[in-house]
């Protein structure tokens, strides 16, 4: 906390610590924070209650008797169909899907962005424009053509197919980020490297990559969140043995057996969100810095 952000706040400074303006400022921030924290609070509180308490009380009341049973059930016991092993099955599947997808999508997008920023060729901007418009296409409408595409290249149902799909759909935004970032690197640096005899890959690996850490952090965060939270592709392009955690979550939440077990649902929800949440809380500052470097310019 003591390490002050490299990028200093530039807004006008509030004059006195307890001025009226300050009280309004902090007051507003705290009220708004409550709105943002409310769902998290409700989820945590609910996940620690027993079912009878949920039915009697309101969602905001703290648990009278704390129980971790919903968490245990969500992780290891909740049923879908005849499988009663909760989310645990999906966790490693998600990791196995996540790592290659993140690595490949970022590798390709960063090279794309670099080529677009410094090695423009006839048509490169056109392809990029198509790509950006592609970011607006709802995934659902591409579902069918992609099924056919994957069938034709024989990757349907293969983990590689899923990795490919994540790479394709991550490409527009990531390429935009990297392109903007690499554009903001002075062109003279690139020219100097060319005079120094470095080629396309030489400049990429030796000059650009070492300078691109902040934007890589942003890309990693966006991709980890997106891929970890993906349901649609995960369910269509995998099989029951390799279902990611989100599919298990959907199954647990929608497998209503008797009454809706809100406490188990909330625990499952929290467990599923844990990986991206942790990444966000850890990397908050780097994220802003990376965004400043990549999203803002161009």
């Amino acid at each position: 906390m003591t390490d002050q952000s490299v990028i200093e706040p530039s807004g006008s400074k509030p004059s006195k610590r307890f001025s009226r303006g300050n009280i309004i400022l902090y007051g507003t921030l705290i009220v708004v924070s409550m709105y943002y924290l409310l769902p998290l609070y409700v989820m945590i509180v609910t996940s620690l209650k027993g079912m009878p308490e949920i039915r009697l009380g309101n969602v905001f009341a703290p648990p009278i008797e704390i129980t971790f049973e919903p968490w245990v059930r969500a992780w290891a016991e909740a049923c879908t169909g005849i499988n009663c092993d909760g989310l645990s099955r999906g966790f490693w599947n998600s990791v196995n899907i996540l790592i290659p997808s993140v690595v490949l999508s970022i590798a390709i997008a960063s090279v794309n962005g670099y080529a677009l920023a410094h090695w423009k060729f006839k048509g490169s901007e056109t392809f990029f424009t198509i790509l950006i418009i592609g970011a607006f296409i709802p995934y659902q409408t591409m579902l069918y053509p992609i099924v056919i595409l994957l069938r034709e290249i024989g990757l349907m149902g293969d983990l590689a197919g899923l990795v490919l799909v994540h790479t394709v759909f991550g490409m527009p935004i990531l390429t935009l980020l990297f392109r903007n970032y690499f554009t903001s690197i002075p062109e003279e640096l690139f020219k100097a490297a060319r005079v120094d005899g470095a080629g396309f890959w030489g400049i990429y690996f030796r000059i650009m990559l070492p300078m691109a850490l902040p934007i890589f952090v942003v890309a990693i965060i966006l991709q980890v969140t997106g891929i970890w939270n993906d349901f649609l592709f995960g369910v269509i392009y995998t099989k029951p043995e390799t279902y990611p955690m989100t599919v298990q979550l959907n199954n647990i939440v929608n497998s209503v057996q008797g009454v809706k077990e809100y406490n188990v649902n909330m625990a499952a929800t929290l467990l599923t969100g844990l990986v991206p949440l942790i990444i966000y809380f850890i990397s908050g500052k780097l994220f802003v810095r990376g965004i400043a470097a990549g999203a803002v310019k161009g």
Partner: protein
Amino acid sequence: MTTTSQDDARAARRPIRLFRNPMAKIASIPMILTALVVFVGGTAWTVVYSFTDSRLLPRLNFVGLDQYERLWSTRRWLISIENLAIYGICSLILTLLIGFTLAAMLDRKIRGEAVFRSIFLYPFALSFVVTGLAWQWILNPDFGLQEVVRRMGWEGFTFDPLNNPDIVMFGLLIAGLWQGTGLIMCIMLAGLRGIDEDIWKAAKVDGIGTVKTYVRIIIPMMRPVFITALVLIASGIIKLYDLVVAQTNGGPGIASEVPAKYVINYMFRAQNLGQGFAASTMMLVSVIIILVPWAYLEFGGKKRD
């Protein structure tokens, strides 16, 4: 002239344009393939089949504009469009407004900036499915907000957006804003950090008030930031699907249906691919009408100086 070396001759000849900087082109192949095969190809495929009467499986039996005529006479589609428009406009304006306001507040050298920032940003880490579930739970009339307020004494308090067709889109909006404003705030914050401190000094010297400085000076300077934010928000709005499925499933009735959901339902549930393709084509057309001029100006028109 005959003594020109081999090297010299090679360098003198104008190389074929396609093979200039071959590595850059080879490295761009994934992008080109994605753009052409997946986006253009997939889109074209969808458009072509939208003129057919394909049911469960695609088949090329053309029926002209039948699917489109039916689409535009279907109440659910019209409601979906209207809902998306309401949600989209509100979401666009409010996300920018809230995102910018929060960023401006955090930019005023406050204490605990990192804490506030994390609080505003964390919902973005959660999927729309999770968001929808959490807010469905909070807005549940029997256990949630409405009941709590009633128990506090306001017996007549009614706030049940998820079961009221008139305001259900706002129930979705509350959840959507919760999830999405943090990222925009982050982008705005980054943009504000990029503003030269001298601007503030100049404004102060000129006696311009804080709010006026933001509106008249800072915001115009942040044009690229707003464009990035706009791309992110707008692309999210068009894709609105998961949140609706998780939070209301289009209900009550068909009061919170959205186009993406119509597409999916007609492609897979109604097994009328042609109809689903026609609907997705309409979505694409509207995206393209809005985007192409802008994208061209933004990315296509620029040249190196």
